């Protein structure tokens, strides 16, 4: 499987294979010097400055470094699950004995990816690794593809995200397709998302999908010929008719088909079945071609099973063994804020980033699956969070309000710059106002949520992106053990 070899590097203006030029080396040197300085001055991580400096010195440095990886660049893009999917993929590649450069800090725009690459490069040799593994923002994919040859692009899903940033879902889809078409990368696509599965028919494609979920999973509804009750509309690529579903897993994700022509969900080569998605972990059978592996995934929720499938499919396309894929999934250590389980002051805490209706609905479903959850929701409206918070009204917080209303003592703490918006969201979802604690300041909100926790109760924290960054700092000062981000 896999090695497509459709490379046509001469068509790409900036790509420069082989040894690093003096200019690229100077770029690496300048960026690393800047990076050391930034750390010394305590300006913190996450700065794109080294990337910007490197690109100033040598505009082709990203392509040059990426071209040094022996086996090429693997890219992960899509609305939800980029970080987790590339995290699981890195765990699989590590288990399989490969070396790779990875922008695991999550800086996924062109400068951020450049920054992460120049910081792992050596000034003499540049990148010495089997792969480059990039999580790439949807809008940045075509820009990265113009500079670096991408061997394989994994697309997770397409949900409506920050409309203030992209405008529309159609726009996002076109950007991703453009990135894939630049070098006709191999595409690893979600068969169950009609907006993803129908992309780029002209390149070599590998599909992954869920065949069937064990009964009892809260988020599954079985339907015949229904339209999805979802924000995302999906149309048949051939005849523009809205697709219908024989089975919906969540949102617009499921077994879709066109009611007008015979176009339908492609049969995935990488498939999960007998999926049991629990509140803290999941089990499923993973079929890779005709091999079947019993998988354990230390992450909650069906959406994470999709992330594991996406990573498995990409690894499979690279010829990684089924055993390595299975144990890479099992050994995955959570990223901070992506369903991470930890202990704070002796109390169990799970942090799950939320940023759009589909992801938030799934995160809330995970909390609701817990028998007696403590809840802290923190909403900011900075650029990185999305400035428009109307998406809160499209996410299903009703299931949480219903669950908490059953318990006379259950309360929810809301925080962040838009704590008040979240408070009324919970009120209109059906939770009595006196059960909603409004504390815009995150440290205080965390303090009170922890103090109100009953013995044995888990605190579920659902923060938007910049709240997540703050939370990480706050928890560090509280001495909570942090896994790598």
């Amino acid at each position, binding site marked *: 499987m896999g090695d497509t070899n459709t490379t046509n590097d001469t068509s790409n203006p900036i790509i420069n294979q082989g040894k690093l030029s003096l200019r690229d080396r100077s770029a690496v040197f300048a960026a690393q010097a800047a990076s050391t300085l930034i750390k010394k001055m305590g300006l913190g991580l996450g700065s794109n400055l080294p990337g910007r400096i490197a690109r100033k010195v040598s505009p082709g440095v990203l392509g040059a470094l990426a071209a040094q990886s022996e086996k090429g660049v693997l890219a992960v893009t899509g609305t939800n699950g980029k970080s987790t999917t590339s995290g699981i993929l890195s765990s699989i590649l590590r288990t399989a004995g490969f070396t790779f450069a990875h922008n695991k800090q999550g800086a996924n725009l062109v400068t951020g990816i450049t920054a992460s690459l120049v910081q792992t490069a050596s000034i003499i040799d540049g990148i010495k690794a089997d792969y480059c593994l990039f999580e790439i923002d949807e809008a940045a994919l075509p820009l990265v593809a113009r500079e670096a040859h991408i061997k394989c692009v994994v697309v997770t899903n397409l949900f*409506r995200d920050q409309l203030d940033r992209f405008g*529309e879902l159609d726009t996002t889809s076109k950007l991703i397709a453009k990135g894939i078409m630049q070098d006709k990368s191999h595409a690893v696509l979600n068969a169950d998302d009609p907006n993803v599965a129908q992309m780029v028919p002209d390149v070599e494609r590998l599909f992954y999908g869920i065949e069937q979920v064990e009964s009892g999973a809260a988020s599954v509804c079985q339907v015949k010929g229904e339209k999805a009750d979802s*924000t995302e509309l999906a149309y048949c690529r051939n005849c523009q008719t809205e697709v219908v579903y024989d089975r919906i897993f969540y949102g617009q994700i499921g077994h879709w088909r066109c009611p007008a022509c015979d176009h339908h969900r492609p049969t995935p080569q990488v498939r999960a079945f007998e999926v049991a998605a629990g509140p803290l972990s999941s089990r499923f059978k993973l079929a890779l071609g005709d091999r079947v592996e019993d998988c354990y995934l230390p992450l909650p929720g069906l959406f994470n099973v999709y992330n594991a499938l996406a990573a498995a499919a990409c690894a499979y396309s690279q010829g990684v063994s089924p055993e390595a894929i299975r144990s890479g999934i099992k050994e995955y250590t959570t990223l901070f804020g992506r369903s991470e389980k930890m202990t704070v002051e002796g109390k169990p805490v799970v942090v799950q980033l939320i940023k759009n209706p589909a992801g938030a609905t799934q995160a809330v479903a995970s909390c609701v699956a817990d028998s007696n959850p403590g809840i802290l929701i923190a909403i900011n409206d900075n650029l990185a969070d999305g400035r428009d918070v*109307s998406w809160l*009204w*499209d996410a299903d917080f009703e299931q949480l309000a219903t669950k908490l209303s059953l318990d006379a003592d259950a309360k929810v703490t809301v925080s962040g710059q838009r704590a*008040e*918006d979240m*408070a009324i969201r919970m009120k209109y979802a059906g939770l009595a*106002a006196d059960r909603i604690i409004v504390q815009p300041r995150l440290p205080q909100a965390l303090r009170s949520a922890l103090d109100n926790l009953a013995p044995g109760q888990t605190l579920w924290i659902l923060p938007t992106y910049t709240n997540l960054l703050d939370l990480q700092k706050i928890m560090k000062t509280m001495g909570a053990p942090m896994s790598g981000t």
Partner: protein
Amino acid sequence: MELRIAHLYAHFLNIYGDRGNIVALSKRAMWRDIDVEIKAIDLKDEIDPDYWDLYFIGGGQDKQQIVIAEDLLAKAERLRDAANQKAVFLTVCGGYQLLGHYYRPHQGPELRGISLIDAYTVAGNRRMIGNVVVKRNDGSTLVGFENHSGKTFLGKDVQSLGKVVVGNGNNGEDKQEGAQAGTVYGTYLHGSLLPKNPAFTDNLIQQALARRYGDVKLRQLNDTLEEQAHKRALVLPA
């Protein structure tokens, strides 16, 4: 008592949290023991203008706007009948634009509206995105979030909802936001609009009920959280 809400094109025009407006209308009615019926009215569905008290049309993506515009023209006569019977219309963003005379894109043919509001919209060159505060004539405020590139200009038969204090409003030029013609309302504010503007919401409910029940006095609710959120929105950066 019963409040009957027709949610037009719920399946298509559902971005920007339009659901929040329907939730706010129905919850605030139900908290006062008023029954609520909500029906999603789709493309090609018939409308009974004698039946519904309140019509809601939200915003969508450009791709859907063309299909909707066509269908809305087919429904125009009945909707006009409903408006003449003093049914309330709340329309947001794309829905608002289609209630005017036309929408003129950069390229291609004009989209005809149904002229329930004396206004027209032309495609603009920049997207107007951000928090908005509107000061109304009675001194009250409306808060929300706008995200549009269409510029809407009002004719002389219609009033705006108020003056923009923060943000762009109808067109980013004349400092006006939204439109009101009798019981027909249009606005660019979402975010969602109604949950954070409870007085405005109650006023809509009252007008909708007046159609069949006359002057209805609504019981005062405890709006502490709503008022907090409104107050906070007044000081958000644009």
